[in-house]
């Protein structure tokens, strides 16, 4: 197995770090592009909601001082970037004593777990379905059933989540409607009971993502399989009298899965966006719900921090997929791209 070529590695790392830098800079700049400054804007919105905020000028000054908004902008920028490098994302404005890092630390594992498991399921199921659609030996019934099950493809997970929570959560009461585990558990613990509870709670949100996503992968896989069917090595595989199932996984799927991996890296952004909304529907205690709460509480610091961490996580996921790609494609180690 060839190693990862330097060019490929450097390029992937460059994209990763540039993504983080662009995201951090955007998050820093955007509030400062708005008319006024973020603190005044926030106080203005608060007073709009609360009717009147006493001593608002003093409060604004106090906050500005605390957040260093009176410093020159480049000082603010370097302080902001320095903070990010040290994992310091500042304070939550609405839940002041809590830092953003703390809140995110509690929410992120749930999101990674949910999205990770959902991704594993839809990627496996989707590619398998796509492969079976093309394979000449698969039963007729499968070739009818798979396209039928793909009817939901391209509907956003958010809407699927709504339908699922209504039917299976509300009407049939088969699954819990909100949260990642029951209130009877004070905190996460490592017991069978708790894990079963988490799976029970996570089933609908995960299904909301899987149901509308696997069809996309099945379609992509189908296209790849059709291309591969026409390759010379498929004719030779047939001539060799290999067993059909062996040809399916060792010759067809093995080669068709490579572009699918690339596509997975490309789709991570969309996937994370979608799961944020699914969490909102299920009030799942991950990053999506955290950001939704922050939006409602006008907690700009928390919105910034949560977004940045989610973007970082996505970029990291993309990097991991990209770096594992050479391990499954023996050709990539020779080509620079």
């Amino acid at each position, binding site marked *: 197995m060839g190693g990862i070529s330097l060019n490929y590695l450097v390029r992937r790392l460059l994209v990763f770090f540039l993504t983080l830098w662009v995201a951090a800079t955007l998050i820093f700049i955007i509030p400062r592009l708005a008319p006024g400054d973020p603190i005044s804007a926030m106080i203005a919105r608060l007073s709009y909601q609360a009717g009147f905020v006493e001593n608002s000028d003093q409060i604004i000054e106090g906050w500005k001082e605390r957040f260093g908004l009176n410093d020159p902008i480049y000082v603010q920028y370097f302080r902001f970037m320095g903070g990010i490098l040290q994992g310091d994302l500042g304070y939550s404005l609405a839940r002041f004593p809590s830092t953003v890092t703390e809140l995110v630390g509690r929410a992120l594992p749930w999101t990674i777990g949910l999205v990770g498991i959902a991704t594993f399921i839809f990627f496996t199921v989707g590619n398998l379905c796509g492969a079976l659609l093309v394979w000449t030996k698969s039963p007729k019934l499968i070739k009818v059933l798979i396209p039928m099950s793909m009817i939901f*493809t391209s509907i956003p997970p958010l809407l699927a989540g709504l339908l699922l929570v209504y039917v299976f959560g509300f009407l049939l009461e088969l699954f819990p409607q909100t949260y990642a585990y029951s209130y009877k558990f004070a905190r996460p613990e490592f017991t069978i009971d708790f894990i079963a509870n988490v799976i029970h709670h996570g089933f609908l949100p995960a299904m909301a993502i899987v149901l509308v996503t696997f069809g996309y992968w099945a379609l992509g896989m189908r296209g790849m399989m059709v291309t591969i069917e026409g390759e010379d090595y498929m004719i030779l595989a047939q001539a060799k009298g290999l067993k059909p199932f062996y040809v399916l996984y060792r010759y067809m799927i093995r080669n068709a899965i490579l572009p699918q991996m690339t596509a997975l890296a490309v789709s991570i952004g969309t996937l994370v966006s979608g799961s944020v909304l699914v969490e909102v529907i299920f009030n799942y205690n991950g990053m999506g719900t955290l950001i939704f709460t922050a939006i409602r509480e006008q907690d700009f610091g928390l*919105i910034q921090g949560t977004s940045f961490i989610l*973007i970082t996580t996505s970029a990291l996921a993309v990097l991991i997929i990209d770096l594992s790609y050479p391990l499954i494609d023996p050709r990539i180690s020779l080509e620079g791209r």
Partner: protein
Amino acid sequence: MAEDRKVKDAPVAGGTKKAGALNRFDNPWLNWKFLTGAGILGFMFFLIFLGYQLWDTNLALSARAPLNLPPVGFTNWRGQEGIPEHPLGTENSGRDMLAMLIVGTPRTVFVGVIAATVGMLVGILLGFMAGFLGGLFDDVIRLATDITITIPSLLVLIVIQSVLGRVDLVTMALLISLFTWATPTRYIRAQVLSMRESGYVQMAHLSGVPVRDIMFKEIMPNLLPYLAASYIGNMTGAIISAVGLEVLGFGPQRIPSLGVAIFFSIEAGALFRNMWWWWGLPTVILAIVFVSLLLINLGLDEIANPRLRKAA
């Protein structure tokens, strides 16, 4: 002996295969997926047009109707029955659901059209330039697309919108198009690069056809079905982003679009008050829009790529 050797029967073996082969040479635009998708979408817009003529769209504003009425033939949790004046029911600030669907559907699709169009135009421009100019420009474009695709667009949009507050639909569409250019750019760049190497473009180049003519007369026509598919895909993505932002509460609220309706219903706990019509009707309409866009997209894919037709 001679008879025994005719082991394969011609008509049977030939008949079925011939039928399969025939389909591949038919007019590619007579693709059932494409036609079904376009048909559903067309019919939906015809109904909306009728709705604008026949129904009072002002009912989509708040306080124009009794609150929380179910659709005709159903009962709400208070035991009220649906009335013909509001056949699809009403929600808790007195908006008529039918009017809301008539007004909201085109608004939702509109956001998608704008964001996808802007994204596509930028994508064509950057994609062709990157593919043809190459060099540093190409490197920068590639990096920019890679980064834009990696970043979950919804999160940046949330940051922007939480600063700007609620915005009108055009602004929202333009904000979304900050992200819709990347996929078409990457795609067109790759296609241009591969077509540039192809024999017929090289021939044109050698015979002194100007680059501009090569781009628009040789490459563009071949790209059209791909571009169309990519456009539809982009539109789907843009609508998904818009609905997402609206559900998070960033949509324009006086005249609601479908996502805003869903936001209201979630805020009011419609799910647990069994007011299914409130969130369910916009959801179903959106689902129909998405499924027909997907069908159009798949159809265009098959039109562009004859190999897929074989498998279908």
